[in-house]
């Protein structure tokens, strides 16, 4: 994941999120993007197939 983000990409992401930011807020967000990129890299460790976002349904009599 690149540590920088272009103005165009940031505008696209903000538009998708529906956020209307001031130019100062956009600049601030760009300044911390490297921190997000580093976090995103950290969670991409080599892993086995069991590392899935599994969830469990609490099937009880009421649900059947």
């Amino acid at each position, binding site marked *: 994941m690149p540590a920088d*983000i272009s103005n165009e990409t940031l505008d696209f*992401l*903000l538009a*998708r*999120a*529906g*956020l*209307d*930011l001031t130019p100062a*807020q956009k600049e*601030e*967000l760009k300044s*911390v*993007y490297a*921190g*997000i990129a*580093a*976090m*995103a890299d*950290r*969670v*991409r*460790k080599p*892993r086995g197939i*069991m*590392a*899935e*976002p*599994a969830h469990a349904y*609490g099937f009880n009599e009421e649900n059947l």
Partner: protein
Amino acid sequence: MPGAAISPGIPTIAEAARQIAAKQLSPVELTRACLDRVRKLDDQLHAFVLVTEERALAEARQAEAAIMAGGPRGPLHGIPIGLKDIVDTKGIPTTCGSKILQDNIPDADAACAETLAAAGTVLIGKTTTHEFADGGPSFDLPKPPARNPWNTEHFTAGSSSGTGAAIAAGLVLGGIGTDTGGSIRGPAALCGIAGIKPTYGLVSRAGVAPAAFSLDHIGPMAWTAEDCALMLQALAGYDPRDPASADRPVPNYTAALGTGIKGLKIGVIHHFHEVDYKVSEGTQRGIDGAISTLHDLGAEIREVQVSPMQDWQACGSLISMTERAAAYEEWARTRLGDFSERVQRRLMLGALVSGVDYVQAVRRRRELRAELKAAMAGLDIVLTAAAPAEAPKIDNVPVWDMFDRPSFTIPFNVAGYPAISVCGGYGEGGLPVAVQLVAKPFAEPTLFRVADAFEKATPYRNTRPALA
């Protein structure tokens, strides 16, 4: 040692319960004493956003009449408490510290408010919170941030900031906090009290504003671990209104207190506080002292290694910022400017995390949980710091600390394991430092047993902040 000798006017919950049961302490007088301290100190502390004086006195009178007629319902009967202002209270404003909810008056109590009321507690008021339990301290909200009773120029940490300050100063004997990345244990650490984040799912979240659904925990804060145990006894239990609620028997949380800790195995995650993020000298002294005390009490001390704190921080932060952005998406889109500047920044971050990042973080959480489980095999407790240092000045809290400084508390939100912060002494500035103890899922009885033994073997519960 800083502070003053403990005031006889500020009992612990356990002490007050014994005196109330023996009819030596009046719940009405206890409530009045708390309200007097609120009047005297809260202009400096800002621990409360709303004081419910009339209701408190009415509840205290009811409790007193019932106790005189038939004895106390339990150890919380007649005990003055505070509820964090993200906890719904029927007929009482619940603002989440936000301009957006200034007129919000819930028509039902949150589950935790309901269970504490049923146990006979007396509600002194709603305590200050960071806005929607995130991002403080903020000075652009309807109410000012809470201040640390040990030195009011310093921060309480958050987001359960008012509850922490109110308990340390004796404005209440216990209270409710919530903890998504450390919001119970952080204020407990910086205010020198005890605060437990129970196992995920143990205490119902129904009626409490969300921060990040899969990391949110509700828990008690009090002067001692024993008091937290007494409160958790009332709070724990299955609630079908909370989709994550754990359906399992509730053990007795105080039964093992005072039985000693000889033979218990305690692992120390040295690399968290000595390598991954080196704590202050005062905090390190507190941790070393705690290890020595626990060893002297008969515990076996070992070293434990898990992934670096930065890995836990990355995992927890990505999940937290995404789930928070989802929870508050509509208001972020339509009323972003009505949030405090700090919360606006937090909500903006959600736009930078992709769906794939989120799923990778959730997958990484599964691995980290498995790693902690393996590391704790053969251990009863693990120990590390609860906070990196004493409380900073309230006007010197970084806006983007999540990128600069990994959290000592978030690993156990990621894992869902129960964790308690207890006072471990005082640092160079005379403010409290803390130790964090962590147990296996649903092993709160062991956690309280160790925390209580530590507190009773050390002098730190004998001193309140000087202003109290």
